[in-house]
Structures are given as C-alpha cells and as structure tokens.
C-alpha cells in the first residue's frame, strides 16, 4: 500500500514566504516500493485508493483537504487550514502505446504520456529528453508539479503555444471517497485514450468539452488531480538573445505582435521577419527617461546533438545566488525610505535583469532552468489583451511611481486558452507583471494589498478588461472581482464543479481563497438553469 505520514503542524508557508498560514495537519503520501512487486499501473491504482481514504478522513471530521505541489504560488490558493497534502512523491510516468489510443483520436501515441500529479516540470523534461521529446512550454523555471501548473495556469511567454494546461488532453480526478468518484475527463472533440485504459484503473470516463475545460484550471477545487495526460513534441532547441531596443519599437511589437518587418539583429543569425517563440519586455518603472527597454527574444530552432560545441553549455558551470541578507537590508531601508526604492532598484539592476547581448542555445529545460532566487518575493500579474499592453503597462508603472514598491515590470505573451477560468482568455494575452522583493507593512510604504487594489482600480477606471494570475498576489477580496474578469465563465465553472463534486465534497475541496473570491458558493437553483 502507498503510505501517508500525517504530521501535526501549526503553520505553513509558500516557497516565497507569502504567509505564514495556519495549518492543522500536513500529509505526505509515498508510493508503494518497487520490492512489493506491484506494476506501475497497480501502484497508480493503489495510490488512488490511498487518496480516497484521506479524503474520507477529512470528510468524516468535517475538515478541508487540499493537494499541494511545490508551493510556488504566492497567493493563498494552495493553502487550506485543515489538511494539506504534499503530492510530490506521487510521480509515476507512463508512455502511451498505439493499442491504448482511442479509435477516433488524432493524436500521435508517441507524443502522449500520462504523468502522475506529483511529477515536477524538471523531472518530466529529463524523462522526455531521454526519449527525444520535450514539453511544449513551461513557466520561467522548473520546480512546479504538473498538477500545480495546470491548476493555476502557469505560463511562459510562448506567443503561439499557450500555457501548461493547453497541452493537457486528459485529466484523472478523484472527487470523493467512493469508487464512482474516480473520473477520467477528456474533450469530446479531442478523444485520446481508449476507454479501457482508465476503466482498468478504476476510473469512470467522461468525454465532454465543457466539463473538461472547466476542470482544466480547477484552482485545486475540482477534486484531487491524480494524473494528467499531456501531448508533447519532438525535442527542439531555443536560441535566446537579450538586447535593448527602442522603447517605442518594443511597445509596438507588444501591441501588434507583428514581427514581419522587424529585425532583431542577432549575431550570426537571420531572424528578420520571424515571429519569436518567446517575447518578453522588461521595464524599470522608476526610470522614466529610459529610451530603450531590455527585451528577451527566443527563437525555436531544429534540434541537433552538438549544439553545446557551437554555443557552450546554456547551464552555467558556476551558479551564483544573490546575497539574501543584502537584499533584506535593502528592503528594510526601502520600508523606512520609500523614496530610496528607485536607487535600490538601480543598484540591483544587474542581479534582476538578464545579461544583455549574449546568445544562449539550449533545450527548453535548459533555457528555463532552476530558479536563482528563492527568498521572500511578491508578484502581481495582470492579463490584458495584447493590443492594450503598452497602455496597461504605462498606467501600472505610473501608479507604481506614485506608490513606490521594490519591483520591476515585465510583459509576457500567451495564446488564448480554452480553459474556462484561464487568465489567458484574450486571443493573445499580455501578462503585465511586477516582480520584486516582499516588504513588511510599514506606515511609510503602501501595503501590498492596497497596492494591488489600486492596480485593479486603475485598470477598471481606464476600461481595460483584465484578468489576474491565480497564483500571484492580488486583492482577491475586491468586490465582484472574479465576475468582472470572467463574466459567465464563473457560472459555467461552478456548474461543472457542482456536477463533479457532491455538496459535502465541494466543502472538502474549498479553501479561504475560494471563499474570498466567492467561487466556493454554489450556484442558486435559478442560476443553474440559465447557464
């Protein structure tokens, strides 16, 4: 049997120390050992039964239960006060064979894999690379679990690919303690696996586009994500180059995403008129006289074995970490003297911004490698239609100059997601984000909650439709926030949640985040009919 250790706790915190939050029990499940003689499929089935037992325990004691991955989210979306479950050790991996494919499937079986929830992005990439495959995109780093990524909509800046959830083709959810509460979801319009595949694992098959799309970005509240079937692609290389370009040009490219007449002038390469795989603009809000912005261009190129001989190892031999005590000293100064923030940002510029004018070539997992900073951090991230990206950036930067906080802005771009509550809801969403070092509340500096409230207000007052990154800091209790962002999508999401989870299970899989955003409130009988 898979075994779970249950540890009594007083508190829990995110990786970037955005808490602490109160907690009663911390649970960790480990799979049955190989010596047991169980096959990987038997271990998977066994783990599902263990999770169902844990859900039953929570329900019986009227407590909430929440799976967490690598706790990278900075909002409290991963937290629940009763029982938190670390799923990182549930990391089985399965290739899909031809005979396991659905008869109407258009997918290539060689590109489909089933990963158990706790597989982290780095281990998935390493596993795939050994067989010549690659994920389509990741976030800026590699520590998150696959279930955590899709639950919160982790994204990179891959203009024509989308976010992590956008290459998911199947979801295995455990929605309660009973045998019928093990379900496997696929889109009706995109079947992938033969029914018997998951039936043999004890799951009921549901093929429905609306249910699948709602469950995809489920905010950890559509049940326990046990397994994820994803589509990958053949290994490719990325050619990364950072340079400063004219501010007007950088913003024009952001607003249009039209690269047909643009030449990035990258040494020893001709990418004139080529739309990059990834486009990212950095901006220091305190440097208003800046005529150029640092911009990161990444182009997709064909994979070949000897790329390190031509370009060197993209992973540095010697990795340097920012001296945390120094950063924290800067923040202490910033709290007492907010006017010093622009100067502090200028001093830290070389540590914050990427090195310019240096070509790096590597696999996806090498370009978006281990995070260099794991101390206290905050991030506020807004999704806007890319055509309004420069306007949104200017408004938010102006607000930041008026209320200085220790961070810098960046803009990343993502293709529209089909997930009901994906923040990448525009045809091409520009994520305008400010990342920086967390500060303590102090009378001389604006609080993070107030700052993020003002950010929401400024976009609303200027009629810029927006979304917010679920895993980042925001004033999540802002009245009518989620409805403002997603409109009828909220009702659709709640309706599916009501269909997948019984009323007691909706309570088990709720948390403070869901309560504050009012997503835990079920639909009224009339609303249910309208959707």
């Amino acid at each position, binding site marked *: 049997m898979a075994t779970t250790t249950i540890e009594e706790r007083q508190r829990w915190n995110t990786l970037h120390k955005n808490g602490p939050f109160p907690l009663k029990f911390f649970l960790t499940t480990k799979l049955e050992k190989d010596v047991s003689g169980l096959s990987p499929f038997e271990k998977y089935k066994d783990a599902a039964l263990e999770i169902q037992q844990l859900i039953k325990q929570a329900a019986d004691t009227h407590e909430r239960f929440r799976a967490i991955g690598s706790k990278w989210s900075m909002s409290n979306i991963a937290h629940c006060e009763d029982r938190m479950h670390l799923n*990182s050790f549930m990391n089985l991996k399965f290739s899909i064979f031809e005979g396991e494919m659905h008869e109407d499937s258009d997918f290539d079986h060689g590109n489909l894999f089933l990963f158990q929830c706790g*597989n982290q992005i780095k*281990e998935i990439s390493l596993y795939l690379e050994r067989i010549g495959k690659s994920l389509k995109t990741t976030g800026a780093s590699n520590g998150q679990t696959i279930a955590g990524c899709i639950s919160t909509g982790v994204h990179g800046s891959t203009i024509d690919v989308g976010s992590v959830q956008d290459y998911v083709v199947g979801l295995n959810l455990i929605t309660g303690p009973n045998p019928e509460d093990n379900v496997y979801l696929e889109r009706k319009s995109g079947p992938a696996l033969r029914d018997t595949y998951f039936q043999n694992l004890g799951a009921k098959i549901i093929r429905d586009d609306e249910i699948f799309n709602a469950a995809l970005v489920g905010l950890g509240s559509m049940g326990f994500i046990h397994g994820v079937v994803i589509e990958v692609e053949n290994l490719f290389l990325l050619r990364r180059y950072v340079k400063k370009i004219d501010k007007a040009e950088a913003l024009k490219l952001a607003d249009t995403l039209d690269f047909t007449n643009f030449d990035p002038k990258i040494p020893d390469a001709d990418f004139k008129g080529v739309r990059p795989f990834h486009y990212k603009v950095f901006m220091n809000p305190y440097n208003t006289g800046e005529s150029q912005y640092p911009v990161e261009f990444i182009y997709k190129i064909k994979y070949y074995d000897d790329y390190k001989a031509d370009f060197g190892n993209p992973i540095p031999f010697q990795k340097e970490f920012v001296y945390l005590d120094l950063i924290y000293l800067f923040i202490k100064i910033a709290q007492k003297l907010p006017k010093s923030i622009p100067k502090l940002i200028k001093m830290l510029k070389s540590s914050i911004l990427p090195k310019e004018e240096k070509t790096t070539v590597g696999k996806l997992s090498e370009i978006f490698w281990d995070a260099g900073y794991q*101390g206290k951090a905050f991030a506020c991230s807004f999704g806007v239609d890319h055509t309004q990206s420069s306007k949104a950036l200017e408004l938010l930067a102006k607000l930041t100059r008026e209320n200085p906080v220790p961070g810098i802005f960046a803009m990343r771009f993502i293709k529209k997601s089909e997930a009901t509550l994906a923040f990448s809801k525009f045809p091409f969403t520009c994520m305008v984000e400010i990342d920086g070092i967390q500060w303590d509340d102090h009378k001389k500096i604006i609080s993070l909650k107030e700052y993020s409230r003002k950010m929401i207000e400024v976009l609303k007052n200027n009629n810029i439709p927006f979304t917010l990154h679920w895993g980042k800091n925001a004033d999540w209790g802002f009245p009518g926030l989620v409805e403002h962002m997603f409109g009828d999508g909220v009702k659709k999401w709640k309706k599916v949640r009501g269909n997948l989870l019984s009323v007691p299970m909706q309570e088990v899989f709720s948390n403070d985040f869901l309560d504050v955003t009012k997503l835990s409130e079920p639909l009224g009988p009339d609303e249910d009919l309208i959707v």
Partner: protein
Amino acid sequence: MFFPQFLSITFKHLKFETSTLKAFRMRFLKIVLCFCVVSIMASCYSVRFQVENGQWEPADTEREDAYAGYNVHTLDTVVTRKLTTGDHYFNISDCPSGALHTVEYRSTFGGILLNAITFGRHKQVKIKYVCIKENSM
C-alpha cells in the same frame, strides 16, 4: 591574545602607560580583535556541487536560502584517524533513489585548528547533501 600581552610588556618597559596610551591600547586591541574575527569568518566557507540533470528530492520547509524546497540531509561529525588508517569514506544510506543531487562541504576555522593541533588525527566533517528524488530517473 598574543598581541595585547606583547604590547603590555613593551609599554611597561617604556613606562608610558598614561591614559592616552591606555585608550590607544584599547583601540589597537579592538582592531586586532576585529582582524581576528574577520580572519575566522573568512576561513569559514562552503563549496557546493550539484548535478545539472537530476531532480532534487523535495521537502516542505521554511528555508529561504538556495535549499528552499529541498530535502537537506546533514552530516556533522569528527573523524578520528588511527595510525594505520589511510583514506576513509562515508556510506550514505538515506537516499532511496541511490543517487545524490547536491553535496556541500564546509570548512571552518575550528575544523582547521583541530586538524592542525592534533597533527591530522582528528578531522571535522561538515557535509550537507540532497538526494535525487525517487522514481524521477
């Protein structure tokens, strides 16, 4: 401690132990102490090795350093070498994957001193290591 005693003898011989000299001596003592502290601090260092193609074993901790999110094991001991003993090694038995992701060794002033004054008989060993996550390979 060596420098203040030496100074004290020198000043006694010269019979110049006035209040100004006392203040000077205190200041000198402080400088020497600072120098010693800086020397000791500078002689403490750690070196970390990490594999680039492996998944670290995760842990839910409240660390804020480079090991945040890593399950860190520590080995802190003093090895006593016998006259007939040559090199020795430690068996790491708490990595279920059987592989290491990170190893860090730490050198301290105390450790170097211990080794020196015991003519290499006692050796301080301070190691941190992180395993590769089980089933990740």
